[in-house]
């Protein structure tokens, strides 16, 4: 085997080892904790909003779910990503792992990807599917459409939410590498989240290429987003945002890796 091939194999084994370690963490207590926490929070809040006799905010159901499945996972994602990247950098865990045959880029990508997949499953996928099961069964029926939206469409909408989560986590990882202070990083990304879709900040054309095109972070009756519309079978015309987010996410991770490779530990 050539030196180059051996190097690639070593990189792949080290990177997979880190990713496997991250994923195994979600198979244990951490995953169970998050699953129970987010199931409780999401379903309970939805229940208050939808299933009570006089819903406090006049919500209908799936737009609440879409908004909740943006805000909660993104907040959890930014806090956990900043803690993982900044915390591990400062306490020496990163230095220990980089003393193994693990490439720096692979380490960073595997850490953030493991966290992203774990959060996507526990904060978006499972709570979303559970809500999809019980929301249409609530009496009186409160939804726009006479029947529950099709499962396929709903799952694709959850996929879009998972891409949004990736965008914010990549932004957090990038800032964590550059700034390395978790409080500052979380504050910046939280501001970014708020800025993207609230009535305080006017909508600009460039936001078509950001999550702002897809989500709303304001809690108000009728705060429909393109994702909610998509769930309710309105034709989807926010592809620019999906492409923009995907490209930006990859760019954030790539630049973060370039900076990370130059750091001293």
């Amino acid at each position: 085997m050539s030196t180059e091939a051996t190097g690639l194999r070593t990189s792949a084994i080290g990177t997979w080892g880190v990713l496997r370690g991250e994923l195994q963490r979600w198979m244990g207590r951490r995953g169970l904790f998050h699953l129970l926490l987010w199931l409780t929070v999401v379903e309970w809040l939805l229940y208050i909003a939808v299933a009570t006799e006089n819903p406090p905010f006049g919500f209908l159901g799936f737009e609440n779910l879409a908004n909740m499945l943006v805000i909660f996972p993104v907040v959890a994602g930014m806090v956990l990503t900043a803690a993982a990247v900044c915390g591990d950098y400062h306490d020496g865990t990163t230095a220990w792992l980089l003393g193994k045959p693990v490439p720096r880029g692979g380490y960073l990508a595997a850490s953030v990807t493991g966290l992203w997949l774990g959060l996507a499953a526990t904060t978006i996928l499972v709570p979303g599917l559970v809500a999809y099961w019980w929301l249409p069964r609530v009496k009186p029926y409160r939804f726009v459409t006479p029947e529950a939206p099709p499962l396929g469409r709903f799952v694709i909408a959850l996929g879009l939410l998972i891409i949004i989560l990736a965008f914010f986590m990549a932004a957090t990882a990038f800032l964590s590498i550059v700034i390395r202070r978790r409080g500052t990083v979380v504050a910046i990304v939280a501001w970014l989240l708020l800025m993207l879709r609230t009535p305080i900040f006017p909508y600009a054309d460039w936001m078509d290429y950001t999550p702002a095109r897809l989500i709303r972070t304001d809690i108000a009756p009728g705060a429909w987003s393109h994702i909610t519309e998509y769930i309710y079978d309105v034709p989807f015309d926010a592809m620019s945002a999906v492409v923009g987010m995907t490209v930006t996410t990859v760019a954030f991770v790539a630049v973060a890796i370039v900076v990370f490779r130059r750091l001293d530990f």
Partner: protein
Amino acid sequence: MTDYAIEARGLSKRYRKVQALDGLSLDVAAGSICGFLGPNGAGKSTTMKILMGLIRPTSGHAFVLGHEVGKAGLAARARIGYLPQDPVFPAHLTVRGLVTYAARLYPGHPRGRALRRRVDEMLEQVGLAAKARRRLAGLSGGERQRVGVAQALIADPDLVILDEPSAGLDPVGRRAMIDLISGIGGDTTVFYSTHILDDVERVSDSVVMLNHGKVIAQGPLASILEVTGQDYVIGLRGDTTQLRSRLADQPWVNAIVARDRGSAEQWQVQVSDPAIAARQLVPLLADGDHSVLQFHLTDRRLEDAYLQLIGASNEH
């Protein structure tokens, strides 16, 4: 295979106003157990981190197991076991979980039952088999260090780099750690830093001494100990003023370290030329208003060589 597991040439590292390493060059022979010594802040950890590719030198080159650090660091690290100073491991893991996790990062690692067997053997070797299922967060400092050694050795590396493995350990833990290091042996090169010179004397066959970012001495332990020559221990009672000044005037006397022992004194006389000292010291002692209570040669001590070399380096 190269004769040296570690070769460094002209390594420098500058952190803004601090010159951590200043043209450091060192060689560590393959298969040796090499103690890396120096005062706090001398640059030991910085050197080790450069060798591991964790920090980049401002200038200079280092080769580890024949691979140039920085260019082929990954290939080198696949054959190195490393224990950082004050290691922090993921606290959610168990002892077995951490060692298994570390093993899976290396190419060619065993799988399934073979991996489990290998981890069991390693935990047995470091004396933690009974605590395999214990979470890392619940371990004592000594146990954490032993887990650190286990994760460093799990891939059967050609080179082990240990940054102060005995730091913070009680005497029993320290002894266990030293036994562990001396047991690594075989073809594996061990390069470890420590402040405990007795331990180095016990297990190392070579030494690298560092001060202010420069190597001030390196080589086989025996040749480092030659620096101090031989020491005589002399117990005296009475007026020793004249004797002291007479001895201090001798060109073959390097130093006289006096210790108060109640009504008596104990001197440690460091000599540079043992042959002359053997002929002239006894006649010199015979003259004066004192009694000689004790007189013998001491073992050569690394501590004396260390203090002498560091002292001379600080004067320059």
